[in-house]
């Protein structure tokens, strides 16, 4: 397309006067630059000089119409982030430079503001700032060599989260050992969800997996992830939440480096497991989550105890309790045996002691026994009641009594009063 606009103020009416063939094709039937026999065109002489604004505005029309948007490479210098939110810098190489601007609205797609000295490729359009008669490159996308902008963005985000204490190790909450409900914030069609479901099923875990769908890549991913995490938080029905996605290109994982997503993870009152991409990918979300799992599969394993593990644990308890019981019984039976032996010894000793005492008592008893005296020819008089009659006063006339002699008793009676024996 060619620049054709000529402000009315120029005073000449032909709108195609400034068409410049060198900058592009002309519309069919448009008049030539210098129609034969035409009158003087604006600026041809001092008399018809054009205003500066006409020049710069026409230049703008011509230049802006001549270039399609391009990627341009060079080095950043004089970067400034203006109060009004727009970024200004120069892009240069060894022999040339051009002023660049990134309007505030276009900054969303750029991970971080560039630094002076960065080698970048900038995608944009060549524009003319007519008011100053300057060319500038209006940049909408920017990529730094070695992924420098993304690295810088990560550093900035990390530093901000760190300053707010969100990366502190003591913020990490323990995961519940036996979650009943596991929320999964991910794409409902993604590989991550498939992996998580099959791992949890394989482990025979007794849980409900509740999917909370969110886009995990693309422009809307950060908002959708934040929204889904917020839903999990407001719902309050989950014991743990896995947030993540399967592997992909670095740009595809970028939503998980978004500061908003990281803050949503940190704000979630449900313990979080972050599982983004493959083992080698570490995202900002990983740093904030209560647990970083290398992959969605690892996240599912971390979230759920396996059937086999639980069986082994029960077995362990069973062995321990049975062992303790057996041990307790053995200790008791040993003690009992020991006690028995002790008791038998003590009883034996006691019996021997008593036996000796008995023998000496028997000897003494024998010594005092009247049987021996009787054997020698003495006798004993006893009343019928059995009382020994050892004095004459005990005898009354006619009283029956008995005499105990060596080999028996003899019935007797007192004949006369006084001391005479009948």
């Amino acid at each position, binding site marked *: 397309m060619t620049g054709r606009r000529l402000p009315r103020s120029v005073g000449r009416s032909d709108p195609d006067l400034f068409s410049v063939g060198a900058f592009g094709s002309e519309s069919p039937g448009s008049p030539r630059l210098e129609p034969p026999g035409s009158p003087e065109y604006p600026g041809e002489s001092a008399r018809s000089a054009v205003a500066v604004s006409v020049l710069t505005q026409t230049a703008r029309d011509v230049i802006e119409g001549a270039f399609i948007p391009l990627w341009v490479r060079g080095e950043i210098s004089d970067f400034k982030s203006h109060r009004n939110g727009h970024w200004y810098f120069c892009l240069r190489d060894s022999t040339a430079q051009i002023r660049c601007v990134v309007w505030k609205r276009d900054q969303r797609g750029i991970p971080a503001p560039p630094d002076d000295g960065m080698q970048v490729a900038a995608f944009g359009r060549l524009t003319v700032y007519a008011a100053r008669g300057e060319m500038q490159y209006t940049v909408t996308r920017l990529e730094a060599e070695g992924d420098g902008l993304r690295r810088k963005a990560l550093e900035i985000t990390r530093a901000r989260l760190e300053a707010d204490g969100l990366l502190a190790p003591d913020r990490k909450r323990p995961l519940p*050992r*036996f979650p009943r409900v596991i929320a999964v914030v991910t794409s409902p069609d993604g590989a991550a969800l498939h992996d998580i479901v099959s791992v949890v099923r394989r482990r025979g875990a007794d849980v*409900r997996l509740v*999917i909370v769908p969110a886009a995990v890549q693309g422009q809307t991913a950060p908002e959708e992830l934040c929204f889904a995490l917020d839903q*999990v938080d407001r719902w309050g029905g989950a014991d743990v939440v896995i947030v993540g996605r399967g592997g992909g290109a670095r740009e595809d994982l970028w939503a998980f480096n978004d500061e908003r997503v990281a803050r949503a993870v940190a704000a979630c009152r449900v313990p979080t497991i972050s599982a983004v991409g493959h083992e080698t990918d570490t995202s900002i979300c990983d740093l904030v989550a209560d647990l970083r799992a290398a992959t969605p599969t690892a996240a599912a394993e971390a979230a759920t105890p396996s059937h086999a593990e639980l*069986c082994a644990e029960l077995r362990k308890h069973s062995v321990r*309790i049975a062992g303790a019981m057996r041990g307790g019984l053995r200790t008791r039976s040993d003690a009992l045996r020991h006690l028995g032996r002790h008791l038998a010894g003590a009883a034996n000793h006691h019996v021997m002691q008593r036996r000796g005492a008995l023998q000496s008592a028997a000897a003494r008893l024998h010594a005092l026994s009247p049987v021996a005296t009787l054997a020698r020819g003495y006798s004993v008089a006893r009343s019928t009641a059995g009382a020994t009659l050892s004095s004459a006063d005990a005898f009354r006339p006619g009283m029956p009594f008995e005499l105990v002699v060596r080999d028996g008793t003899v019935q007797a009676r007192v004949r006369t009063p006084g001391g005479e024996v009948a």
Partner: protein
Amino acid sequence: MIDATGFEHRLGRLEEIARALEADGVDLAQALALFEEGIEQLRAAADELSRAETHVQRLVERSDGTFEVIDPRE
């Protein structure tokens, strides 16, 4: 579905029982009662494990801000 808190509670109780049985000074009647309870807890826990099942559902927020967990259309 297992009452997971129940299962967790059982494991905790089994731990207590084992510890009590291993301690000195527990009397025999008490030890036997603990042992019996331990066996019962183990049996119940194993039972629960054998009934385990995984459900996959989806969270849906209603317009009034309340939530519903539904089975996905498969």
